[in-house]
């Protein structure tokens, strides 16, 4: 029953958002809470029941449950037919269809679960802020879009959700819209996302042109049928385009720049959207398209490399940031890099597992930081915190657990998932993957260091805040601390779901996801059974190398935490950054985020000029306007000048030649010729007489001479 009405799950928060849109202004806070938080709670419970029903439905085969509610685009009569690449006709079909399989089940549970906790937290955090109903309306709208994205059965409906979460991200980052920095950050997020969206759409359309359908089930069936070769160029292109979309949404290089600025939004927004849910949409999409990616090893390599580079790059920036939320933002980018590294080396289940655990401990860390900021009366700079552990004990304890989780200390969630990724990266065939493992390993060290730094600067050491701030420090209300505690418990327990074989567990998480992911690309039919049998056998053995790597990772985490403890745990008012002491230029580069934003301003947006020249979009604008003013208008002006010159020439010709010569000429000629003729009619009588006499004499002479 719950499974059949799975389309209701996104509609509960949509209803909440609609209520806020129409009636929000007039409602009491309590009513807003009841409607919006209630909607997400109902969605969560519904989702739980639906997933339970699904497990009965699928009996472990992982067969997806698909339900099409309404045919949106395309129809049976074929008037939206188009030609595929191979010339056959295919029907364009995008429907409101919902797909529940192990992958979307996991996402559904943690999105609604963490979303529910964050909604409850927000009732406490936003209690004193204006625009209360607007905030919850946007949050519910976000949940609606995210759930649509997760449950969609085709790329087009997924894109509706994709765009929706981008929109809500914009609305929520720019929640304090009267602050220019906030609205700038919102613009940056949306525009950067948009660039990725172009990639997503192009990828989806390439797939439909090549394969003939948008639906995930159809695409998976076609891709795994063996009809397409590994390394197919069009599938590689489609995969790379889809990955570009994922880069935009999940903040990978080069489109990660919006996420740190997105911290302008309220902390629950950062927790929900930019830690637990929206940024994982890219990972979800790539995991969904795993059948395509597996057929495109080049694309997978690209994903892995960019993931690893992003991980270490963002971690390096996080080492020296002072704003508590910014450290967490870079940490998110870095951990997302881990997830893509996992997807790129083919360890899809490990990547999804890391998404799962990361959602809990990152949401915990963000909500905890929100609690800290709440206690510090709005101060976000860690330079002015310190010695808070006795004053806000619940926040301290939960955040400490979150820090242990992300650093990868055994027993906590992050350890199992991160370790699985590093192990899969190390064991993939090809020596280059060892290098990727090394990058992941170095990042783990840096992660432990900067998270330790965050905790020690905030909670340990001597108090560095002003006296009025010190007096105001208080623990957050229960609505905020209870979600923290719940998330802390999850941060511990969630990891045990994916306990690997090497440590005696059965890795239920990976088993649950097995039907979704194709382990290897489809080989020649004959080899398949033998290949699968061999593969299965390998899984059961535990390579001693795995233990070695595990010990190395734990060692890295401990070393990182130890270094952080040494540098920051006793920080007084004038503590110094060890990196700044060791190498001031390096510190400057890291503090300024490797000057990437400035670089983008020079190259892509054109907000800064290179000398006299402006590049990028604004530079193109300037160049166009120069071209228009100088060359096109110049041409127009020259045409005008030429016309005027011709006109002048024409008028000269007309005045002097035509009028002068042709018209006046004959007149003058006539007048000149008339002079003698006039003589015949002088008007003088005696002249006439003379003429007569002359004639007479002439005659006489003539006759005489005759």
């Amino acid at each position, binding site marked *: 029953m719950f499974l059949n009405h799975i389309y209701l799950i996104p509609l509960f928060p949509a209803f909440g958002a609609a209520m806020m849109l129409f009636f929000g202004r007039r409602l009491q806070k309590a009513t807003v809470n009841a409607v919006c938080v209630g909607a997400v709670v109902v969605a969560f419970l519904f989702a739980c029941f639906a997933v339970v029903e699904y497990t009965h439905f699928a009996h472990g085969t992982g067969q997806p449950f698909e339900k099409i509610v309404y045919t949106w685009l395309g129809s049976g009569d074929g008037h939206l037919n188009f030609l595929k690449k191979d010339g056959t006709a295919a029907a364009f079909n995008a429907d409101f269809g919902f797909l529940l399989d192990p992958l979307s089940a996991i996402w559904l549970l943690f999105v609604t679960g963490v979303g529910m906790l964050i909604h409850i937290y927000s009732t406490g955090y936003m209690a004193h802020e204006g625009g209360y109903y607007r905030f919850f309306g946007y949050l519910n709208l976000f949940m609606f879009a995210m759930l649509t994205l997760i449950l969609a059965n085709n790329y087009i409906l997924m894109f509706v959700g994709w765009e929706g979460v981008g929109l809500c991200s914009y609305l929520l980052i720019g929640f304090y819209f009267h602050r220019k920095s906030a609205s700038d950050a919102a613009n940056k997020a949306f525009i950067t996302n948009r660039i990725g969206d172009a990639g997503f759409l192009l990828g989806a359309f390439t797939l439909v042109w090549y394969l003939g359908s948008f639906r995930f089930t159809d695409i998976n069936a076609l891709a795994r049928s063996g009809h397409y070769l590994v390394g197919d160029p069009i599938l590689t292109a489609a995969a790379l385009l889809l990955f570009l979309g994922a880069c935009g949404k999940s903040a990978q290089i080069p489109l990660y720049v919006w996420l740190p600025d997105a911290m302008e939004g309220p902390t629950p927004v950062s927790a929900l959207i930019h830690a637990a849910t929206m940024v994982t949409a890219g990972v979800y999409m790539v995991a969904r398209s795993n059948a395509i990616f597996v057929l495109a090893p080049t694309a997978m390599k690209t994903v892995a490399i960019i993931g690893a580079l992003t991980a270490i790059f963002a971690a390096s920036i996080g080492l020296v940031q002072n704003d508590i939320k910014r450290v967490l933002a870079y940490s998110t980018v870095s951990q997302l890099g881990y997830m893509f590294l996992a997807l790129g080396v083919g360890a899809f289940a490990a990547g999804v597992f890391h998404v799962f655990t990361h959602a809990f401990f990152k949401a915990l860390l963000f909500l905890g930081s929100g609690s800290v900021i709440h206690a510090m009366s709005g101060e976000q700079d860690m330079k002015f915190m310190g010695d808070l552990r006795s004053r806000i004990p619940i926040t301290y304890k939960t955040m400490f657990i979150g820090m242990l989780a992300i650093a990868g200390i055994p027993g906590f969630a992050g350890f199992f998932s991160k370790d699985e990724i590093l192990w899969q990266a190390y064991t993939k065939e090809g020596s280059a993957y060892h290098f990727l493992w090394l990058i992941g390993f170095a990042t783990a060290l840096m992660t432990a260091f900067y998270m330790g730094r965050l905790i020690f600067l905030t909670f340990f050491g001597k108090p560095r805040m002003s006296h009025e701030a010190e007096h105001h420090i208080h623990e957050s209300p229960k609505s905020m601390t209870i979600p923290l505690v719940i998330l802390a418990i999850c941060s511990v327990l969630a990891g045990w779901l994916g306990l690997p074989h090497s440590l005696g567990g059965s890795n239920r998480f990976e088993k649950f996801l097995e039907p979704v992911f194709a382990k290897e690309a489809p080989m020649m039919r004959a080899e398949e059974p033998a290949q699968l049998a061999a593969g299965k056998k390998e899984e059961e053995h535990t390579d001693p190398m795995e233990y070695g790597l595990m010990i190395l990772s734990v060692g890295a985490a401990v070393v990182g935490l130890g270094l952080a403890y040494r540098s920051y745990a006793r920080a007084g008012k004038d503590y110094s950054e060890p990196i700044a002491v060791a190498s001031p230029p390096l510190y400057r580069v890291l503090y300024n985020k490797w000057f990437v934003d400035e670089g983008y301003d020079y190259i892509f947006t054109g907000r800064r000029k290179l000398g006299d020249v402006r590049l990028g979009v604004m530079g193109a604008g300037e160049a166009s306007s120069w071209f228009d003013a100088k060359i096109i208008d110049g041409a127009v002006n020259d045409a005008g000048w030429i016309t005027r010159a011709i006109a002048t020439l024409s008028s000269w010709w007309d005045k002097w030649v035509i009028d002068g010569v042709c018209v006046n000429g004959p007149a003058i000629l006539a007048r000149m010729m008339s002079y003698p003729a006039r003589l015949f*009619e*002088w*008007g*003088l*009588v*005696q002249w006439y007489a003379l003429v007569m006499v002359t004639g007479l004499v002439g005659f006489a002479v003539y006759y005489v001479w005759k």
Partner: protein
Amino acid sequence: MVPIATLHYLVVAAALFVLGVIGVLTRRNVVIILMSIELILNAVNLNLVAFSRMWGNLHGQVFAIFIVVDAAAEAAVGLGILIAFFRNKETINVDEIDLLKW
């Protein structure tokens, strides 16, 4: 003494004729021009009479009578024109008849 032949008469007539022409062409006074025209006519008369004597018949003399009549009529008309002219222009200077001059 040379006997007076026809030639002498013709020469006299020619002389008179030329004088008359000169008078018509040269004089400013309209009356004098009319008188000169009479002189021309009379010279012609003399010429005709001389030839009449030469040929021994009266043809010349008859034609001379015609010319006399014509001269009389012409004089009358000419004087009429002269008077009309004088009434308009208050002068008898033929140089001042130049309304047709450009």
